[in-house]
């Protein structure tokens, strides 16, 4: 790699990271009522419990933090899985990891487990995500064709969706059955700071596990044997990526539902910008995902729809045609 390319990459990361941060900051100014955000922030910093300060700190701040961190998780996990499976269609939503996480979280929440022990909610999501990821790896592991991967994902998605539905049906609470849309489509409406505190630490651990695999992922593009001869332990790499993405995605889904397609679209758009190197794609996709999700979340708040559109609806409306285009291109390329 030439120093020039390194410099360009640093520039890209800086630009994406700055844009994501700026949009998240700007999202604090967008909501359903108008108030002076600066006064509210001064009140909050001075410990004054004014209504504006409450709205800023308890409602808009958690929404911005979760939007950015969940977007980061989805972009990063998409890039990591695409690198690991060496398949451009791997995305936590498409291959069923998010679906598994949703079932895990639903099981923890509606049984009342998370009411007794708050951490059970993200941990349930993580457990579901790990089970899905393992099932996927068993069905369509290393180097499997795109068709196998997608079919495995369809099967896992259907199965976890059915289990989620079953768990909601079994709940004696009359509202539960109507909440499937939240779990399958995702939303950031009225999230709270305690939810940030529950999910963010797990996400950060997952991020570190994935980001630290960058060099190994680059080596993997040379083939498994070459990567191993270069001294990378592939078993360890797989575990780190599966566990890392499951931790981050599981915790995300547990507080915001399964938001699809961010992990598919963002790495794709950024791949040409990082010289098609999967290791470099990781951090760039993370920032790109954060940027994309916060913008989408701004979108659902600005659109004059009542009740608010689910965030996953917007990402799927953009992402699903994108997936179709990819499939179409793949068909054309392989005769």
């Amino acid at each position, binding site marked *: 790699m030439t120093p020039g390319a390194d410099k360009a990459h640093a520039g890209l990361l800086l630009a994406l990271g700055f844009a994501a941060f700026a949009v998240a900051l700007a999202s604090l100014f967008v*909501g*359903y*009522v108008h*108030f002076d955000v600066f006064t509210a922030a001064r009140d909050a910093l001075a410990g004054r*419990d004014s*209504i*504006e300060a*409450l*709205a800023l700190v*308890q*409602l*808009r701040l958690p929404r911005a933090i979760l939007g950015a961190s969940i977007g980061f998780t989805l972009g990063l996990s998409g890039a990591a899985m695409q690198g690991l499976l060496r398949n451009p269609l791997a995305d936590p939503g498409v291959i069923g990891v998010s679906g598994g996480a949703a079932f895990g979280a639903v099981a923890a*929440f*509606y049984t*009342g487990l*998370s*009411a007794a022990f708050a951490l059970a909610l993200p941990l349930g999501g993580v457990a579901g995500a790990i089970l899905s990821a393992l099932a996927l790896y068993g069905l369509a592991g290393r180097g499997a064709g795109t068709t196998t991967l997608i079919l495995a994902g369809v099967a896992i998605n259907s199965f976890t969706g059915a289990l989620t539905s079953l768990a909601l049906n079994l*709940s*004696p*609470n*009359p*509202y*539960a059955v*109507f*909440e499937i849309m*939240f779990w399958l489509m995702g939303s950031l*409406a*009225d999230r*709270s*700071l*305690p939810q940030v505190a529950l999910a963010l630490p797990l996400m950060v651990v997952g991020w570190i596990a994935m980001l630290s695999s960058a060099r190994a992922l680059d080596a993997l593009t040379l083939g498994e044997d070459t990567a191993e001869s270069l001294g990378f332990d592939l078993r360890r790499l797989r575990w780190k990526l599966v566990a890392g993405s499951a931790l981050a995605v599981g915790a995300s889904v547990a507080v915001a539902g399964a938001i699809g397609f961010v992990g598919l679209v963002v790495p794709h758009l950024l791949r040409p910008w990082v010289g098609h190197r999967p290791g470099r794609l990781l951090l760039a996709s993370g920032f790109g995902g954060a940027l994309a999700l916060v913008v989408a979340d701004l979108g659902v708040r600005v659109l004059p729809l*009542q*009740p*608010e559109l689910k965030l996953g609806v917007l990402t799927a409306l953009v992402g699903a045609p994108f997936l179709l285009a990819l499939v179409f291109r793949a068909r054309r390329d392989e005769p």
Partner: protein
Amino acid sequence: MSDLTGLMATPSPWPGLSRPSTPSRQNCVGVTDNDVSLQPEAPVQNGSERSRADGRDNPGHHDRSKLRPVKLLYRAFLACLILFASPALAKPTRLVSLNQCTDELALRLADPENIASVTWLAQDAGNANMALAARDKPANQGTAEEAMAYRPDLVLVGAFTPPTTRAMLKQIGAPVAEFDPPETLAQVRQQIRDFAAVIGEPARGEALVAEMDRDLDAASVDPRGPKLKTIILRPNGYTIGPGSLVDELLARAGLENMAARLDIGTYEQISLERIADLDADVLIANSEIAGAPSLATEGLNHPIVAALSHHMRVVALPARLWTCPGPALVDAVKQLVAATRDLRALAQAR
């Protein structure tokens, strides 16, 4: 059941009975099919849509299908005849209720031995006002099949009973009475009377309405006094706007519904942000439905609701008091008045 089968063979008594309880000449002549809260049509349609199998079960029903072309007046005349001749005979003895709100009315107004089944919702003390009385009744899940298993002489359904269920009941020839949720106090009174008439207990209906009105007047605060600014937060972030029954109750409790200023419909979602911004005196939140968790009720546990309690009075009100509008509305008003008494005194002093 046996003597009633004979009665069922006569032309539908329901249109006449659905009118206010004291039969007057005007009521009998004025019977129409456009009663809003009750569907007097239903039993009549049973006659025309009845299958042959039902006809065999109940040969007397044959006469009814011929009634279809006959003028309304004739039906009304017969209905009045029955009403005046022997109102006691009109009393159904195997009531099956497929709706939580008709459950409550049946449990309040009918003789317990005449209720064959209520829904499972009626037995949950967290959701239903008459759970104690419902406890020893067989429970149903609101399906037509279950209803028929009790061989009902009257099936009570609500606005939320699926159309397929209602169609099925009509097809198999069960007499059906539908009660929609009332939207004003006047409609609540009328519904109690209609219901009492349909189950052959008009006097009890009158007594219940009188009791409710007396208690409500006693619980209400002076309408000329100061009004406290109020907003309601229901599960899933819904609030209740003007033109609703709840709005009327708030007025009775000396509360002004701020939803009116927000240009909000009768039942609409409101973001927590807007609620925080309202600068209300009182926030009425549903108290948690007992038992299983749901995201719908989790919004009521958002930390901002607790934080807002420093700025406004947060009143937790059991949703069951106004889920099915009836005499329990009095308790809702009482609890609201009690929870805001000091605020009202403060406002008065100012």
